[in-house]
């Protein structure tokens, strides 16, 4: 019984993180802010949801752990590639941005 309650709480936290991440993708003013909100919240939310389902059904735990580890590996890589690509293809920053250090790197070839 305690196991089911614990798994329900973890799964509910994961679903809430997923919704907050999607709300951040809808509300943020810029591509890079949207990337940050989408990546962090959805990675943690999907991880917590998979682990919570594994806690509720203990015979599924290793399979859901494999799914969680795959999400934890692939999601930051693809989002990093998207951020780098949008910076190199010349998407401007939003109005209130303070600092932009990306032009100081060696071999920077994109348009600012």
């Amino acid at each position, binding site marked *: 019984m305690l196991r089911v309650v614990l798994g329900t709480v973890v799964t509910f936290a994961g*679903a809430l993180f997923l919704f907050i991440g999607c*709300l951040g993708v809808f509300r943020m003013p810029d*591509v890079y802010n*949207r990337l940050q909100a989408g990546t962090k919240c959805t990675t943690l939310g999907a991880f917590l949801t998979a682990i919570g389902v594994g806690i509720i059904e203990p015979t599924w735990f290793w399979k*859901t752990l494999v799914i969680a580890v795959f999400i934890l590996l692939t999601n930051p890589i693809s989002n990093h590639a998207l951020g780098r690509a949008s910076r190199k293809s010349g998407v401007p920053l939003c109005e209130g941005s303070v600092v932009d250090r990306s032009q100081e790197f060696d071999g920077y070839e994109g348009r600012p």
Partner: protein
Amino acid sequence: MSGTVILTLTGIITAGILLCLLRLLKGPTAPDRAVAMDTACTVTTALLVLLALFFKRSVYLDVALVYALLTFMGLVAIARYLERGI
């Protein structure tokens, strides 16, 4: 965990997918739409895991596993095109 609770969680996640769809319709440039699609893909993986719990079949988790691995490929293709091609 009863079916009503799982369906409530599924409804919350579906509202997130609808918000991603609104951003895809509204986004000014192509990288905005790519970010919205990437977020929708990750959210869909969690939704498939929850639906496997709802139908109580362990075989349904394989779909989420394939999904978590293969959407990575399309996104990397889009990112490489945006980095080199324009």
